[in-house]
């Protein structure tokens, strides 16, 4: 059985269909990418999985449990945690505090939660900054904090929303091993990304979305060669590193 | 029966004037996301200005609009520029700056008590050409001053609607209210917009003041009862919505006047708060508010 099973998910806003009958699967231990041009509906699909949107139709099963329509905090309890494209740290609190908030998902005790948080910070290479208020971090650091916080909830599946957007190429290169490290400790990952290079590098399986519809899926290197995918990106200002 | 019709119409007349006192509050909130607690005090300042103008010159009371409205515009403009802006700047990344609320409360204390020091604890009523004039329709009496006030309310509502929808400045104001950063990127000078909006909010108080003075007393704390009422009205109508404020006012006016015919006036006050809380339960964005606004 797949860890995450998305079947026939449709999301409409008024008359606009943002996601149209999409199927998708994530196996345990996989890194799966969702790509597509701007406004294709990949973030909406992502939000449906994370619980920020209620799908109009279709089913989303995690570990066999229906999660479509559940609230984000309940989904998190089941083992699915998301990050935000625009990072939302608790700005006045320290890095350790931020991460400890995540760690409280699995414990009620402060000392246990802090221990877990420090473990995660070490894994993510943020331990040195643990006493720095989040507002004083650089952007790549804040992105990593976002990861750390999510990871501290001990998810089985991590949903990453454009976690590399806004980073310089050298910073992206630093981020890749971090994500692999997370995956290596047994966390499956769904990653929505605009930066093609990163997806190609990380994922075993990609889904290409355009106009709300899935137009291709499979091995990343094969998928990018497909005609429809090229067509979808053609004319778009797609550059490997737009920033 | 005629008594009830009379009370409904009187409720609408007074209610639209309540709405008028709330327009400035909702305008400022809509753009700056700041609840201006000094709102009632600004109304009081406007009423004193209108009172002295009318009493000293003896002209038609509505001529006071020409003087009081610009006066309050500049009063608001510079109050925002000098007192509120520095505090706002420090908190501008916050969606709803709470310290600014406290500062406006400080301004309220200062203004009300300054008025007490300067003008004394004395009730004043302006004697104007419309004071006490009644319009009689089928044995029902309606105060002329309130009818004119309702007319002015509608004109102001239409003007503000046009201003925000169609004028260049209005578009800039709306852009700022939707997204501060984006508007700044588009070359709109945010702090100037805020000065203007605050000035306009206060100018609306000036209009309300000129409408009230011909039939209302003037006193250093006269703004306080209007203040609380305006809070209820703007939430009822939807914070930031100008038609909402006016209609919210009318609803309050009708509840107050018609309700009092069936129960003691002290219970209608209760009824207003109960209605307010029910609306909050059922439609938190207010009757005319946008969902994104709460």
């Amino acid at each position: 059985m797949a860890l995450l099973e998305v079947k026939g998910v449709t999301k409409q806003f008024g008359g606009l269909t943002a996601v149209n009958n999409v199927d998708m699967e994530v196996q345990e231990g996989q890194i799966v990418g969702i790509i597509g041009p701007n406004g294709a509906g990949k973030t909406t699909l992502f939000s449906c999985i994370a619980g920020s949107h209620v799908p109009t139709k279709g089913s989303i099963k995690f570990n066999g449990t229906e999660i479509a329509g559940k609230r984000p905090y309940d989904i998190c309890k089941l083992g699915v945690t998301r990050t935000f494209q625009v990072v939302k740290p608790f700005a006045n609190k320290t890095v350790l505090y931020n991460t400890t908030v995540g760690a409280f998902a699995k414990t009620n005790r402060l000392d246990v939660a802090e221990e877990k948080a420090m473990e995660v910070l070490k894994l993510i290479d943020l331990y040195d900054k643990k006493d720095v208020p989040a507002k004083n971090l650089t952007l790549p650091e804040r992105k990593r904090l976002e990861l750390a916080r999510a990871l501290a909830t001990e998810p089985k599946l991590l949903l990453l929303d454009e976690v590399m957007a806004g980073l310089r190429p050298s910073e992206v290169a630093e981020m890749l091993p971090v994500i692999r490290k997370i995956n290596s400790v047994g966390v499956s990952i769904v990653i929505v990304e605009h930066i093609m290079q990163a997806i190609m590098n990380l994922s075993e399986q990609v889904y290409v979305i355009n106009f709300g519809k899935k137009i291709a899926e499979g091995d990343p290197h094969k998928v990018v060669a497909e005609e429809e995918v090229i067509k979808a990106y053609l004319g778009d200002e797609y550059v490997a590193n737009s920033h | 029966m005629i008594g009830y019709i009379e009370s409904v119409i009187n409720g609408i007349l007074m209610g639209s004037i309540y709405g008028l006192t709330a327009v400035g509050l909702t305008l400022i909130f809509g753009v700056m996301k700041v609840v201006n607690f000094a709102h009632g005090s600004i109304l009081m300042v406007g009423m004193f200005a209108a009172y002295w103008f009318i009493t000293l010159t003896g002209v038609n009371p509505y001529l006071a609009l020409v003087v009081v409205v610009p006066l309050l515009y500049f009063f608001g403009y510079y109050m925002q520029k000098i007192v509120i802006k520095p505090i706002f700047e420090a908190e501008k990344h916050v969606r709803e700056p709470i310290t600014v609320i406290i500062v406006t409360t400080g301004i309220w204390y200062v203004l009300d008590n300054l008025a007490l020091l300067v003008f004394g604890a004395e009730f004043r009523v302006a004697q104007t050409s419309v004071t006490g004039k009644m319009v009689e329709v089928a044995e029902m009496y309606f105060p002329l001053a309130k009818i004119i006030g309702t007319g002015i309310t509608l004109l102001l509502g239409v003007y503000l609607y046009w201003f925000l929808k169609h004028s260049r400045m209005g578009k800039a104001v709306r852009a700022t209210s939707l997204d501060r950063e984006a508007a700044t990127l588009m070359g709109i000078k945010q702090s100037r917009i805020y000065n203007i909006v605050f000035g306009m909010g206060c100018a609306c108080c000036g209009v309300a003041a000129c409408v009230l003075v011909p039939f209302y007393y003037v006193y250093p704390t006269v703004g306080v009862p209007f203040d609380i009422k305006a809070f209820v009205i703007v939430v009822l109508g939807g914070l930031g919505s100008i038609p909402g404020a006016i209609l919210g006012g009318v609803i309050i006016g009708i509840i107050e006047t018609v309700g009092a015919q069936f129960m003691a006036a002290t219970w209608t006050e209760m009824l207003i708060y109960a209605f307010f809380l029910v609306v909050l339960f059922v439609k938190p964005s207010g009757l005319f508010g946008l969902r994104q606004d709460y």
Partner: protein
Amino acid sequence: MNLKKFIVPAVVLAMGTASFSAYAAEKVVKIGNILPLSGPSASVGIQGKQAREMAVDEINKAGGIKALGGAKLKLLFADSKGDPTTGVTETERFISTEKVSIVTGAWNSSVTYPSTQVAERYGVPFVVPVSVRDTITERGFKNVFRIAAKDSWWTRDQFRFLSDMQKEFKTPIKKVAFVYENGDWGTGFAEKWRELAKAAGYQVVLDEPYPSTASDLTPVVLKLKRSNPDVVFMTSNAADAILLTKTMTDLKVNVKAIVTSGGGHADPSYLAAVGKSAEYLFDIVEWETDLNRPGLKETNEKFKKLYGYNLTGEAVDAYASMYLVKDVLERAKSTDPNALRAALASTNLCGGKTGLLAYNCIQFDQTGQNRNASLVIVQVRSGKDGKMERITVWPKNVRRAGYKVVFPQPNK
């Protein structure tokens, strides 16, 4: 940082008061006065303060308290803001820190009520010039003495007046309406009215409390108009009195008489604010400038010269209370609270400066209530110069000579 700048003056101020009380020995008798000097009843509080100052100035100039070797009276004032807790705190401050001999005040019944409880606890005499609530002198307290009339006397006299008017003008009254502010004062009056109306056999067609902070009273007036009473009884503060009077004129509410209860209707700015709308209204007060009292003219002129307005009921009570204090000190020959209490209880002060009062004499009964306190009723009329005037009409023996009462009032 800023904190230091603040604390230093605060401490200096605090020490200042402490030393003050230390050297204020022998030759001075301190009187603590609690009044609403800010807030909604500020104007009446200021009247009381000025009248006390004038009286004490006179007493001191005339040689102070002779029985105490010419000791001077020293007034201390505290602002209650009309708030009971502040009143309690200030009473405590006066008694324990300032060591005053007598406390007076506090106008607002809601402040006087708990403040007198403090004075009772400390055993310090508390003189109440005005505060109408009955229960202030009905708790078996030994240290509380009230000069002016209480609630039940005010309402009793309003109804006596009404029955006298019916007889005098042969106009029967059947239906009465009550309109009153929903405070402690207004609801207290309404309770008494209900009983009195029942006893007198009037039909109550409207019994309407309204919130005193109301921004519009048109709804109440519309209701009043539909109930169509012969007489309206009203209890209002200044702001609502103005709104009610103007709206009643505007909506052409026609009644035979409007009887009000002082307070807002007696506020000096009320008549100026409503002008002719108040014509023919009857108001009950403790005192009026046109009363025929020895020495009144001179005192009023002096007061007017000092402060710019005529004496008011509150001012006269406050003025008389200082002469009462003087009299008590002379007789007690000491500032010991027990002696003062005994002297107060045996007060029999008539004529002189206290003769300005409508009732001439101060004598306290068992409960500490001045048994002579009485009231007068005035009618509002526009004078020759267009200015509104209050003319004493009741009881008949004090009616202004030559004045013809208008009852019932003509339709508007």
